[in-house]
């Protein structure tokens, strides 16, 4: 059976797994952005927090993904359901690029712009929302893009704890020594990653501040 035939015959399952994968990655990114962006802002406001926060995210990044899934297994609420567990672990991985790029983007705002804003009587909140964040959107988005592509790849390992997604095919293929099964997981995952990279890249260029 040719790979194309295989894809055609199993397109329902593949589509199903792809949707699960997108669901895992999507939720992960929502959590990672919701946590990472505020942490990135916090780092620029309280420089002494920079070491612990970035250090912590760095350490999370270095834990082998399979081990991280294992570590989280005994955690009460998380370990109870595979998808929760997977999303928690993936979120930890996705945090670093988002935190780092958010703080880099904000720190990169021209000093004169910030001084003028403060000197003219903008509040801290106004400076953040009207000046710093708009001017660092493209840098932030670059971080989100890296995190998304990373997560699409790592999410295949979530299948190891039974969270579903395209990793299911890969693990089954490995167990059965079946290349076509592996490809049925790997190819859609690669396409997802490329697609996300492209779309977010276009958005990033659109939002890049004019100089």
């Amino acid at each position, binding site marked *: 059976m040719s790979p194309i035939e295989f894809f055609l015959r199993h397109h329902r399952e593949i589509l199903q797994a792809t949707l699960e994968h997108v669901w895992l990655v999507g939720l992960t990114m929502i959590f990672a952005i919701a946590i990472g962006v505020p942490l990135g802002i916090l780092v620029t406001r309280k420089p002494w927090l920079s070491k612990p926060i970035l250090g912590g995210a760095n350490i999370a990044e270095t834990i082998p993904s399979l081990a991280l899934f294992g570590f989280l297994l005994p955690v009460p609420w998380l370990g109870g359901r595979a998808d929760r567990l997977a999303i928690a672990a993936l979120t930890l991985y996705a945090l670093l690029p988002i935190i780092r790029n958010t703080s880099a983007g904000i720190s990169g705002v*021209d000093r004169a712009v910030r001084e*003028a804003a403060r000197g003219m009587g*903008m509040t801290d909140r106004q400076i953040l929302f009207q000046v710093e964040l708009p001017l660092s959107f493209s840098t932030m988005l670059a971080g989100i893009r890296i995190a998304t592509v990373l997560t699409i790849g790592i999410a295949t390992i979530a299948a190891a704890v039974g969270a579903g997604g395209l990793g299911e095919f890969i693990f089954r293929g490995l167990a059965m020594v079946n290349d076509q099964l592996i490809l049925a997981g790997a190819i859609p995952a690669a396409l997802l990653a490329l697609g996300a990279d492209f779309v977010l890249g276009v958005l990033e260029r659109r939002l890049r501040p004019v100089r």
Partner: protein
Amino acid sequence: MNPQTLPEFSPETVIEFRHVHYTLSNRQLLNDVSFSVGRGETLVLLGRSGAGKTTALKMINRLLAPSSGEVLVEGKLTTEWEPIALRRKIGYVIQDIGLFPHYTVSQNISLIPRLERWPADRVQRRVKEMLETVGLHGRTFEHRYPHQLSGGQRQRVGVARALAADPDILLMDEPFGALDPMTRGEMQNEFKAVERHLGKTVVIVTHDVGEALVLGTRIGLMEAGKIVRIYSPHDFVHASDPMAAAYMAQLRVYDEAKRENESN
């Protein structure tokens, strides 16, 4: 320049420094600075880099607060003012301008009026008025972004932005310092005309003695965190103080070069 042409001041004091000291990590940046600025005056703080001019300026809109001593604006301690309210009353122009790159000229100028929630039509009118005031004629400017402007045009927008909410006080830190000499001269003359018309209380920081003489109604000479003395432009030109004399000698170099070349 002679003393008779000096504008008349009302005696009302708008800004007052009383024995202001400012120390930052063991470096004394301001050392017992006292002076006052009356309504409608233009005080120029003249001195070298590191003399404490900018530090003093930032005390007025409370970007910095004194380590000891007092700064009063309109009779009230800057530490008692709500900082945002204080700054909104005070226009601020810096050398690097700090226009918002993601805002159009119009949005930059209307920033404070919009934050102050002026009605939209009043904001629009004010933007047009300000563009006229700073000599940016024609409607094309409104929709341009800062990166599409020349250095001089950007500085004009910076001044327009500082004046937009009609502040009583204007602070300028090396406002024309980054401009080429020709543009700088033009801007100084135009600013002088605008200022004469608007009658704001202005404090300008500069190390350019020519600028101090053109724009100042008084010149505060600063050195090593202290005010050496405050002169009228007339007195400054004739001052015997070695620093003031050194500044004047610097101007004379140009005169001599000019004369030499004329006689050739």
